[in-house]
């Protein structure tokens, strides 16, 4: 029995080692050869990446992906990812590029190649019923709050404010759980709530706490390609986006409240050029 157990363990270790093997480098050449670029994007994060009535993934980030494809002169293929699998998809080579509302964190930089400069920024807030009367983050202590699996701030909010998280895979599940009273509020990116608060479905809800932990978003390529031609290409692309004000344009197109971060980046990029 013991020997059999050891055998199983060894097999698992081997399988884990295989899963982390780097995929072949030189994505840029591969994309051009294929004529197709595969970009991982959110499909449940309105308006940054969501499905339109026909099922197509559209939004702020898919538009960015389309810009990349256009510049490369290849066809765009969007792959829906969620927070808990987006980095693995990139590592395994299922996607060439990840633009999926990901905050730039030091431990993530060790796993995927986050490209400088960063393209957006968001903070953390709570969507809760007005009747819950939330005024301070400390009020979350010991309360059940909903979250999205894989969001980096679940742990610090739980640690710092003592909130008891129940986290789901996608936003639809969280919405249902919140509306039927399984949690008192939803801890998530403030950018995701702005769109909802305009909707009649959420008229009894509010985002009353001060936004905390404002963090920039980074798009990513495979770690070993960050300094390679593919990483350089994407870095230039983002610089161009900031310089031309394309991202502010997209923000307006998708009716996202103007972010101070994009404005600052646009001005800095313009100055750097002149």
């Amino acid at each position, binding site marked *: *029995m013991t020997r059999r*157990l050891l055998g*199983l*363990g060894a097999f*698992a*270790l081997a399988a*884990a*080692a295989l*899963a*982390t093997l780097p995929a072949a480098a030189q994505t840029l050449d591969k994309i051009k050869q294929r004529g197709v670029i595969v970009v991982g994007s959110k499909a449940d994060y309105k308006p940054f990446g969501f499905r339109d009535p026909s099922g197509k993934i559209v939004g702020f980030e898919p538009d960015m992906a389309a810009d990349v494809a256009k510049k490369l002169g290849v066809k765009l293929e969007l792959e829906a990812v969620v*927070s*808990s699998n987006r*980095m*693995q998809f990139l590592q395994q080579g299922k996607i060439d590029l990840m633009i999926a509302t990901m905050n730039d964190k030091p*431990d*993530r930089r*060790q*796993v995927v190649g986050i490209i400088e400069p960063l393209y957006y920024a968001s903070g953390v807030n709570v969507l809760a*019923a007005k*009747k*819950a009367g939330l005024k301070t983050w400390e009020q979350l202590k010991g309360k059940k709050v909903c979250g999205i*699996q*894989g*969001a*980096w701030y*679940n*742990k610090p909010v*739980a*640690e710092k404010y003592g909130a008891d*998280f*129940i*986290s*789901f*895979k996608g936003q639809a*599940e969280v919405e*249902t*759980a919140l*509306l*039927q*009273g*399984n949690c*008192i509020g939803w801890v998530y990116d403030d950018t995701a709530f702005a769109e909802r608060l305009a909707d009649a479905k959420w008229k009894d809800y509010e985002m009353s706490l001060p936004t905390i932990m404002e963090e920039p978003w980074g798009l990513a390529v495979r770690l070993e390609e960050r300094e390679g031609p593919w990483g350089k290409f994407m870095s230039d692309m983002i610089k161009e986006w900031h310089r031309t004000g394309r991202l502010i344009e997209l923000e307006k197109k998708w009716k996202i409240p103007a972010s101070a971060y994009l404005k600052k980046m646009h001005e800095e990029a313009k100055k750097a050029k002149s």
Partner: protein
Amino acid sequence: MDLTPLWEWFRWLYGATGVKLTIFYDAFDRQRFFDGFLTSVRLQAACLVSSVVVGVVGAWLQGSRLKPVRLAVQGYIQFFRNTPPLVQLYFFYFALGYYLSYMTDEGLRVALVSNFAWAVICLSLYAGAFNVEIFRAGIEAVPKETIEAAEALGYSRLRAYVYILLPLAFRISLPALNNNLVNLVKTTTISYAIAVPEMLYVANQIWSDEVNVPEMMNVLLVIYVSLVGVVVWIMHKWERALRVPGYVS
């Protein structure tokens, strides 16, 4: 007992080899993983016991003289055996859960049944449906003459079931039951879809925060092999203890 040196060894291990087991040296991760382990064990124990109860009662009702009762049991088995457990879980939690919530005085909506309770209910009914059929197979293997003998001695149907039929049928059913219960222990992991903080759910949170997927996958694998090992060991002990020499194997 102070375990700090042990925890610190795991921190050293991360520095030296890159094997990132935060569940040992990070107090927050350690606490939530341990809680997850306990939740898993509680969930498994509750499901194991109630699914066997469902099986025993269901098998008895299946032999009822009343046709509607037999039909109801048959309907229950077909429904739970023919639908995926994950779909059932979502159905209970998101569809039925909506009707089972109430408004507090402050006007806040509160769910009546917790996600843990839904997981126990759903998984017990799911595994219970299989258990009913497993016990039926055992009951049908008991010779008709034995039941006739019990009837001749004046046993009622319920008493014959409890004292004669079930003990004999149970011995025949054990190997198949063993199989189903092992499956049940593993199936409890799907309750992470409705955010029951069991081990897979907690591991998923940890690897999202710490980006240590391979380490946590291996930890989960080792723990599940051991948990199932314990269940199999207990079932085998039980099988041996119940053995009647000369009666089935």
